[in-house]
Every structure is written in structure tokens, then in C-alpha cells.
């Protein structure tokens, strides 16, 4: 993508001195209001003067007003350029406000000994949380589980690719199959957990268990042993997200030039050769995109685990998110939970950056 403007506007506008000054006053004035309101609230919060604030909403409102003034001010001060900035600035302010501020707050919380159910409030804990994390077997177990869950993506991709190939073939009732295959993605994971995880797969009354017994599997208890529970959980999660990858791959397949495959067939390639040597290399960028997007969703896996097994048996199905969820729900341990989450974020960011670098180098070795 080029970095220059694709659209050029020649406007003979000359911004009046007054307009620019109005813009500056608007931005600075609203910022001043924000500072004053925030200071008043801080004074109130520290107990220096009782000003009757019950929450921090006034500061938040002043902050939003300042953001709006910043957007309007751009147009006033910069004219045509300001109108262009207005396309991106609102989202940028929105995202920065809602991620940077909580992340900074999060880092502060991560180093605090803070239990919401205790009356004492936050205390600075130094490295106590980190030491506790390093010696917390359940957290490391959850991180280890995440590796297994992520490795399962390879199988999901294979199934999704197969289904995409089938949907791309000459078949009747294509629309019916496409809609049917898409449906699992539409379902709420919590409903899936209950109606499939706990009812359909129920050991005693579930039809799947009956089917398995009929097929000769003596003891189909899907969530009883650690290994089996992990596999069942992966299968359930795969069931929801395979449509997602399938659709991406299908779109990729439909974007391929048909002649290439035809030419391979004319040259006498077998179906497997055509797939291995031509189709797959052409599809590789799409496969990798689907893989990375799926990986990102997989790293957030929680609701199935929370509702079906709460991490059991013996932590075998635990994910990082579900572990932190229980750490908060059961023990209201905000400080420690936040540190675990922050550490997880660091791992994800480092891991994904390395992965993207590696993939880029692999795809374009000479670039």
C-alpha cells in the first residue's frame, strides 16, 4: 500500500486567524476543564475537602468532552487536513483510551497485594506476586495446556481445508451444506457447553455415549481422564471454530485461477500431486492467515472450560483465562490475577511477534 494520498483535493481555502484561534482555545479550554475536574476529584478522594463526589464519572465525562474537542479542533485549526484526520482520530482516541489507560492501571495492580473481599484495600506488594507466580504449579500447568490446545489447530486446519475443498467441488445443494457447516460458529459457546458438553456427551444419558458403546467402546466417559478430557475439549472448541477457517480457506480456493489446476490435470498430474505441488503452495498464504487468526482466538479460549469442567479433572483442561477467572471468582485476588494476565500478554506478544517474523521470512526468503 502506498503511503501517499490517493485523493488530492485542491481547495483554495485560507483559514482565518480567528478560526484557528477558536480551535486552539477549544482544545486548551477543554483540557483545562479536564485538569480542574480531575484535581477537584483527587482532592475529594484524598479527603482534603468533602466535595460530595461519589464516583469518578465527572472526570470521565470531562475526558470524553476533551476528546470531542480535540476532534473538532483539528478541523478548525487545520481545515482540509483536519477533515482527513477526523477519519482516523476518533477510533484512535477510543482504542488508546480503552487499552492504554487500563493497561497502565493493570501494571500498577499487578504489583499490588489487593483482595477485593478484604477491607484493607490495595497494598504495594513488590515482587511478592511474581515470586508466587513462579512457584504456582497450576498457572504453569495452564500455560502448558495452552501449548496442547494450540497444537490442535493443525488438525483443525486439516479438517477445515478438507471441508473447503469439498464445498468447492462440483456438488449439488452447495448452499445448504455451506449454511449447515457455518451454523456451529453462530452458537453461543455457553449454550454449546451445556447442551453438547454436558448433555449430548453425558456419560449415562447422552446419545453420543450410547453410540460409542454400540461401536464397542466400553467406557465413554469423555471428561473423566485427563488426556481424554483435553481431547474432548479440543474437539468441542474445534467444532465451533472449524467453520471460521473453512470459510477463509473456501474464499481462498475460489480466488485461485482455475486454469492452473486444469493445466496440471492436462499434464497428467494425479489428484494428490495437483494438491501437493500446486494447490497447497498457492493456498499457503491463506492457510497461514487462517492459522494466525485461529491462534489468536484459541489463546482466548475460556467459556467452554469455565462452564463444562472448571479446569478439571485435576487441571487437565485448564486454560490461562479460565484459571485467572477462578482466581478472581473464588478468591477475589485482583492483584495476583492481573499479574498472571499481564505475564500471559507478554508471552503472547513476544510469541506472536516471533511467529510473524518467522513466517514472513519463510514466505519471502529474499525480501
Amino acid at each position: 500500500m502506498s503511503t501517499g494520498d490517493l485523493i488530492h483535493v485542491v481547495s483554495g481555502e485560507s483559514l482565518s486567524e480567528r478560526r484557528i484561534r477558536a480551535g486552539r482555545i477549544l482544545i486548551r479550554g477543554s483540557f483545562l476543564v479536564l485538569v480542574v475536574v480531575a484535581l477537584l476529584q483527587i482532592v475529594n478522594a484524598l479527603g482534603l475537602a468533602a466535595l460530595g463526589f461519589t464516583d469518578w464519572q465527572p472526570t470521565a465525562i470531562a475526558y470524553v468532552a476533551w476528546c470531542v474537542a480535540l476532534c473538532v479542533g483539528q478541523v478548525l485549526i487545520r481545515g482540509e487536513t483536519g477533515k482527513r484526520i477526523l477519519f482516523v482520530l476518533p477510533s484512535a482516541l477510543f482504542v488508546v483510551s480503552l487499552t492504554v489507560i487500563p493497561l497502565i492501571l493493570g501494571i500498577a495492580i499487578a504489583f499490588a497485594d489487593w483482595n477485593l473481599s478484604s477491607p484493607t484495600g490495595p497494598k504495594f506488594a513488590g515482587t511478592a506476586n511474581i515470586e508466587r507466580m513462579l512457584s504456582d504449579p497450576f498457572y504453569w500447568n495452564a500455560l502448558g495446556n495452552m501449548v496442547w490446545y494450540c497444537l490442535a489447530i493443525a488438525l483443525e486446519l486439516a479438517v477445515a481445508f478438507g471441508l473447503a475443498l469439498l464445498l468447492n467441488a462440483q456438488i449439488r445443494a452447495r448452499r445448504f451444506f455451506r449454511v449447515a457447516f457455518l451454523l456451529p460458529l453462530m452458537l453461543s459457546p455457553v449454550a454449546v457447553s451445556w447442551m453438547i458438553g454436558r448433555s449430548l456427551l453425558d456419560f449415562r444419558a447422552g446419545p453420543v455415549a450410547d453410540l460409542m458403546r454400540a461401536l464397542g467402546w466400553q467406557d465413554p466417559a469423555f471428561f473423566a481422564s485427563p488426556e481424554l478430557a483435553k481431547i474432548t475439549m479440543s474437539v468441542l472448541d474445534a467444532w465451533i471454530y472449524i467453520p471460521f477457517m473453512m470459510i477463509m480457506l473456501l474464499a481462498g480456493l475460489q480466488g485461485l485461477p482455475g486454469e492452473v489446476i486444469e493445466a496440471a490435470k492436462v499434464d497428467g498430474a494425479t489428484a494428490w500431486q495437483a494438491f501437493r505441488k500446486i494447490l497447497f503452495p498457492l493456498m499457503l498464504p491463506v492457510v497461514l492467515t487462517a492459522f494466525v487468526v485461529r491462534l489468536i482466538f484459541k489463546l482466548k479460549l475460556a467459556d467452554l472450560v469455565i462452564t463444562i469442567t472448571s479446569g478439571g479433572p485435576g487441571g487437565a483442561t485448564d486454560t490461562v483465562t479460565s484459571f485467572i477467572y477462578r482466581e478472581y471468582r473464588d478468591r477475589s485476588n485482583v492483584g495476583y490475577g492481573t499479574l498472571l494476565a499481564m505475564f500471559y500478554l507478554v508471552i503472547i506478544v513476544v510469541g506472536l511477534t516471533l511467529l510473524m517474523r518467522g513466517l514472513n521470512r519463510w514466505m519471502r526468503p529474499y525480501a
Partner: protein
Amino acid sequence: MSTQPIFQDKESDLGHKAKWWTSRAVIYTILIFWAIVCIFPIYWTITTSFKLQADVMKGSIIPWLEFDPVWNGWRSLGLSPETIGASSTARDQFLGRFTNTAIVAFCSSALAVFLGSMTGYGLSRFGYRFAWMKNNDIGFFFISQLILPPVVLALPFLILYKELALLDTHLGLILLYTLSVLPIVIWIMRDQFIAIPPELEEAALVDGQGVWGAFVRIILPIAAPGMVAAFVLALVLTWNEYFLASLLTSSSAATLPAMVASQIGSQGVAWANMAAISFAAILPLLIIGVLLERFIIKGMAAGATKG
């Protein structure tokens, strides 16, 4: 003279037809098998909502043959034919949760599409420069928000919302949900706008419209299918979100997934009731999925064609 005909099918060509039929059979077997895998759980949910607890425990599958359908699950929700006229607290609670989910999902998806369309358009048309960041970096900044796991934001937001009195409010959830789907929306919309040639706006600009006039009157109507796609995808994600909803809401703004998750009574799970709530929770998206399948596929395909 040999009696052999001049034109004859080779051995391999004769085998071709049989091979074709086997491959058809294999393809359709797999397709039908997977369709059953996808649809049977939904069928199971619907039928379970009409079963008595004893039938659930027997694992009956076929109505009228294996069990007699009754309005068991729907009666406890106050939505069966006999109870629909009478007042019911269960129904009021359910409808309240349903409205909450609808409000939160629709508002956050609409807000995300609104912000995301503007951003996607700006990034596809103009050269920006903010400190060291150029267009590609700014685009990457937005899309990279996708990797932020909700668990990282959950606890800081819990504390922030407590101070801001936004816990258990629609606004609180809407803000977070918009944040979580905005990266995907920007991704889809940027691809949509890149595909539209800039000559179209140039014509409008020559006609004396401003940049925003051209955007709203010329480009948005063309990009409308893409916006629907982004909206539906955002709707699916926000409608089903459970983790943040369960942490940040308790009663007045609680959503359906949170309600489904908390349905365990003192004497085990009332399966018919659970099935009825689950089915009512997924029904709107099932309808959207069947009706707007084209748009959903278009939305997800955006990432595939432009990596």
C-alpha cells in the same frame, strides 16, 4: 481385416465412470456426515426442551416414537401456550436478559462499524503520519488489538468501572465489546475500501463535494454489503460473549450467555429448562446465519483474499 472396431474405449476410460461414481459417493457421504455433526446438536437442543426429565435421562432422540413431546422447558420459561397469557417472573427475567443482550450487541456492533468504516476509509485513501507511524503502522496498530486477550483487560476494567459506576450497565459492556470487535471491523472495512477505485470520489470532488460528502454519498452506499458483513460478524461475537459479561454484570445488565451459565438449581440441572433457554439464546443468530450467510462469508473472506 481384424474385427476389432476402430474406435473403442480404453480399459482406463471404462473404469472412469465407476471411479467417478465412487468419488461422488465418498464426497456426499462426508458432506452429509459433517452436516449431521453440525445440525444434530441443534436438533438435540430443540427436542430436549420438549422432554420430561425422565426422557432426558433415557437419552431419547425421536419425538412421538421414543418420547411424547410436552411443553416442559417452555412452561418453566413462561413461554408455552398455557402460560403465555399469565404473568410470569421467569419470563420477565428471560425477556430482560434477552433485551440486554440485544441492546449491547446491536449498539456495540453499530458503534464498531461506524468507527471502523471511517478508519478503514481514511487508511485506504490518505497518507497519515503520526510520530514514526505511517499508514501501515497505524493499520497494524488497530488490527494488532485483536491479540489482546480479554482476560488482560477484565480485572483493570472491573476496578475502573467500579470507580466510574459503570459496573452492571449497558454502556460499560458496549464500550468493551466495541473495543473487542473494532480490529476485525477495521480489517474488513479497509479491504472493502481498497477494492473501490478512488476515481469514484474524484468525480464527486470535481462536482464540488467535500471529502466527507464524497465518503457518505458515494462510497458508503457502494461499501454497504461489506458493512453488513462486518456488522453481522461483530454481532455474532458480541451476542455470544460470556467471559466479560459474567465478570462485569450481575443483574440489571446481565446478558443471555451469563444467564444460561447460571442455570444450575439445587437439585441438579433442569435439562428441559436449560435447553429452552439455550435454544432461545441461539435462535436469533441461527436465523441471521441462515438469512445472511452470504454476508458472513463475505466478511470472513476479506481476511483470506488480502492477507
